[in-house]
């Protein structure tokens, strides 16, 4: 069976929109309603965040949702059973994103097997070192048909980008600026130049850009300069303000769609 991430990039040339949410927030059992709402409203891909007690790369929004998810009792085991229940309904690719330690404690090999079983197409673990992926853990992802997605930043050297492109199997997650998640800013010429540089490198993997995308301007810039965009904190912020998943998601997408329509129609 063809991996859904591969399929997505084959079928859709541009403006790919991936949304991140923290599993277990606002309620322990919100996972399924969020996934349904995101798919119904037109997300192309979903990143399901595994909450962790010490999210070093995350800003205040994801710190808060992670802490609340853990208080709600979220764990990898619970997440897998939620994903299994909804598996048949989901048509877009699901990616698990989290920190390495909870996955290590679960057992990486078993994690990959279970993730694959419940319909997950890819995994992002930003603190798994490249060389350990290459020499130790990569085989578990590959044998379970999971794409492994690495991050790059404007500070990542050309050689390292090439090395990452070589190891990546789904897409490359280009962090818009060297920052923690949810730091709202405008795309400056520096970021545009960085994304241009990536395009000119003609990498074998498509590039999605994430971190800081929160409004019309930043989404426009992301769509204009990469295959697509990843939004996390901006969506979760709406869910912090109002926990009614369906209405919040619809409103959020209406705002995004007007952006997309006025740009490309």
């Amino acid at each position, binding site marked *: 069976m063809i991996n859904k991430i591969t399929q997505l990039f084959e079928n859709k040339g541009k403006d790919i929109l991936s949304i991140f949410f923290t599993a277990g927030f606002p309620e322990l059992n919100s996972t399924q309603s969020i996934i349904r709402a995101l798919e119904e409203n037109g997300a192309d891909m979903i990143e399901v965040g595994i909450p962790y007690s*010490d999210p*070093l790369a995350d800003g205040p929004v994801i710190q808060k949702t992670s802490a609340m998810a853990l208080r709600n009792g979220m764990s990898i085991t619970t997440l897998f059973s939620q994903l299994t229940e909804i598996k048949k309904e989901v048509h877009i690719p699901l990616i698990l994103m989290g920190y390495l*330690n909870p996955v290590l*404690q*679960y057992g990486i090999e078993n994690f990959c097997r279970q993730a694959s079983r419940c319909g997950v197409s890819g995994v992002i673990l*930003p*603190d798994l070192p490249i060389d350990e992926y290459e020499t130790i853990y990569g085989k578990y992802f590959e044998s379970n048909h999971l794409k492994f997605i690495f991050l790059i930043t404007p500070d990542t050297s050309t050689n390292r980008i090439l090395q990452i492109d070589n190891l990546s199997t789904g897409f490359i997650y280009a962090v818009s600026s060297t920052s923690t998640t949810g730091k709202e800013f405008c795309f400056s010429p520096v970021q545009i130049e960085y994304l241009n540089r990536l395009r000119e490198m003609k990498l074998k993997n498509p590039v999605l850009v994430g971190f800081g995308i929160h409004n019309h301007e930043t989404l426009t810039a992301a769509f204009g300069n990469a295959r697509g965009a990843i939004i996390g904190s901006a969506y979760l912020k709406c869910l912090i303000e109002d926990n009614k998943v369906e209405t919040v998601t619809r409103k959020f997408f209406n705002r995004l769609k007007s952006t997309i329509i006025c740009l490309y129609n």
Partner: protein
Amino acid sequence: MIIQEPDTKGYYGPYGGAYIPEMLHRNVEELQANYLEIINDNGFQEDFINLLHNYVGRPTPLFPAKNLSSRFKTKIYLKREDLCHTGAHKLNNVVGQILLAKRLKKKHIIAETGAGQHGVATATVCALMGLRCTVFMGSKDIQRQQPNVLRMKMLGAEVIAATSGNQTLKDAINEAIRYWINHSDETHYVIGSTIGPHPYPDMVARFQSVISSEIRKQLLEKEGRETPDYVVACVGGGSNAAGAFYHFISDSQVKLIGVEAAGEGVGSSNTAATIAIGTEGIIHGCRTLLMQTPDGQTKEAHSISAGLDYPGIGPLHAYLHQSQRASYYAITDEEALNAAFDLALSEGIIPALESAHALALLPKIAFRPHDIVVVNLSGRGDKDLAIYQEYFSHDNHDK
């Protein structure tokens, strides 16, 4: 053979490494690529030794504690790190790292602090060297360590409250790392212990190793031999112990003893005894032992001493434990408090609560009369007076 240095990727056996998100890669790689060359440079060594001598106040005395010795019927020496400028061993590492940061042309220094000792040491050296200094400290620790907050401010540092999590040392480290990610240009993060991603554990251990190198020289003068029978030191993240053990690690006849904080007891839920109850995992960019739930969430540590209140342990110690080169014991809050009062009354030295954990081990080991036991007295107790006072008024210490 057990050695004190990690391999080129920062591993001590299975422990160590650098488990960091890409956003930190440039800064950490810059350190990995340059730290050894800078530290081994003659000019650097000259500056470092000069500052240790003239500013920190080294060498610190190796004091023969006669009253303790006669009580425990053995020969006890105290390595007086409490006599370093700012009151603890912390300054050794800070001087080294800030000299290194200057060579890497960094303009802004950030640090985390628990009890405030590392924060004060960092603010001190930044003032001396004219560098901007920002210290992250858990909101709870800011409340309980006010004198050190005032010292940092007087030294010109900005103190930022870490309001996430349990608002103690672990959260201060998280906030410092996040700030470093967001301000990666021109900023150096001075980690205060032998923790964090490679090269921090090795770098900090090297800067603190001056402690054991002095002990060797001082013992040779006093005892005609370079090695003691025992070295005892308290362990939070493990920097003073790493420094005190460092030059003895390959002398297998020297027994190395690390003392963790048991808090209210190793079996209680309020403990910081990572080696006793921890399991292998990742904390703050490093594979080591840590206190965690079966789901891999970091547990909160508890110790009466803010400096030992850390749910992880440096990878060198995890390795020395695993290879049985060093042994680790846990001492409760109560035992540490008693040991602090004992030292005050028997030798006229008020130790830091952290160091009191090391002293509290003395009655638990059957030393022989001719044994030479070196206890690393890592810091002085001024910062803990409020806790001592409370204990004094509550308890039966009206001797």
